């Protein structure tokens, strides 16, 4: 599949049409993360218009977008930029272009659910800090949380953990493009 076709598929999955966007910039203007993004929401739409999939997939934008929806809500033409960003994130991950810290967090998060059915914040934050090599991030809050019994050492476990683990496996298989649609893995893009 060429980049052109892949982009068309991402746009279709996100239900976004590139020429709905007339580059007014309202999305970037209201985006709380725009400061830190190397490609702002309007830029994502511009790249979609000119077919520059590689720039989207290699941007930090797709990993920094919080999904807050401000851009889509304010867009005069109802362009759902975060939906496109989400599809781009899946494509980037498929191509091995994931952002390390995001991957560490999200995988630890899902592993946590798989093991216990619910999330355990202390375990998650601790696991993340170890795996991402950020030992002191947020750790200043831990004594207060322990003292006030806000977090315990005991995980929040539910009865149906096995059922949840199987659910997660089925969902992950469903998303695998090989299984779901018979499409083959898309090739690497150049930066």
């Amino acid at each position, binding site marked *: 599949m060429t980049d052109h076709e892949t982009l068309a598929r991402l746009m279709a999955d996100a239900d976004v049409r590139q020429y709905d966007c007339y580059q007014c910039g309202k999305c970037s203007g209201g985006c709380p993360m725009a400061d830190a993004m190397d490609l702002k929401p309007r830029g994502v739409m511009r790249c979609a218009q000119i077919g520059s999939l590689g720039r989207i997939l290699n941007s930090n934008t797709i990993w*920094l977008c919080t999904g807050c929806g401000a851009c889509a809500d304010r867009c005069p033409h109802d362009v759902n930029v975060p939906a496109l960003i989400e599809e781009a994130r899946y494509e980037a991950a498929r191509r091995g272009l994931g952002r390390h810290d995001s991957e560490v967090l999200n995988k630890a998060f899902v592993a946590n*659910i798989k093991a216990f059915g619910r999330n355990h914040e202390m375990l998650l934050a601790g696991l993340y800090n170890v795996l991402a090599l950020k030992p002191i991030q947020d750790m200043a809050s831990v004594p207060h949380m322990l003292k006030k019994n806000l977090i315990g050492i005991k995980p929040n476990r539910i009865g149906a953990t096995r059922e949840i683990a199987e659910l997660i496996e089925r969902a992950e298989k469903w998303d695998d493009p090989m299984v779901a649609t018979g499409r083959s893995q898309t090739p690497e893009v150049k930066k």
Partner: protein
Amino acid sequence: MKRYAYFPGCASESTAKSATLANEFVFGRIGIDLVEIEDWNCCGATSAHTLSSALGLALPARPLARAEADWPELDVVTGCASCYARLKLANHRVRADKSERYMVEKIIGKPYEAKREVLNFLDILSDPAARANIGAALLRRFKNLKAACYYGCLNVRPAEITGAENRENPMAMDEIAALTGAEPVEWGFKTECCGAAHQNDAALEARPLAGRILDNARACGADVILTACPMCQLNLEMRQGEYIRKREEKRTGKARFPLLDMVLPPDPEQAIPVLSITELLAVAMGAGGRRLALDAHFVPVGRLIAGALGGRESEAIL
């Protein structure tokens, strides 16, 4: 008595202790019965859908399907904006798209028709009957308490899912807070994202989002920020010490060892307390300190409540 199927969310079991105790107290007083969904699981929050779109729908769909089977006549309610967004989205997509419903049912291994609504606490507190009951249950009145009501992004957006009419300046929480005598302020960050989703994996980039909300609330004269989500609450509160320290470091040019935040609480002159809307209601309904966990806040709330209630009244609470 009005009943809802209740999805507590993971935070209710740990960091949202004070809000959870307040929720129980308030809903008990106003005749709302929350029936906890049996064996509910994590909705996947902001992480699961980042990895897999199928998982992002299936995780919230499982407890919803369970609620539908056990309590077919009840709407589902949750007190967390992140859970609300995921549950509501799953409900919406399953209802709107047959192929998504097929996928979800296959993955969760249960039938799920998305017949009932998903609501948040602001929805059920704004119900006219609930509002009348709140009015009748209030025992104390706050004075000179300026409150910045913070709704957060996911309680209102995306509009086609939440059905929220006003995403820039919602008023539901302001109106509820005003019942207690608190004075809601006009401010600019009611629905700005606080960045909670990325405070772990992109801390450097996400910290300013919370900081700007704190600054705007103070600049608009608020004494307290009210929230309707434990994630927003934790994010705005827990990292305030760090935020204030960094701001001071920038101003004075002197750095301090970060872990000192552990022993030094945030400077009370600069910090702004954060309460959940239900905590405010609970105090106004006469809840004592033992019923709530007001001492569990990262930013102490004692001075605020003492000031707004007058000395004798607040002694009973704190």
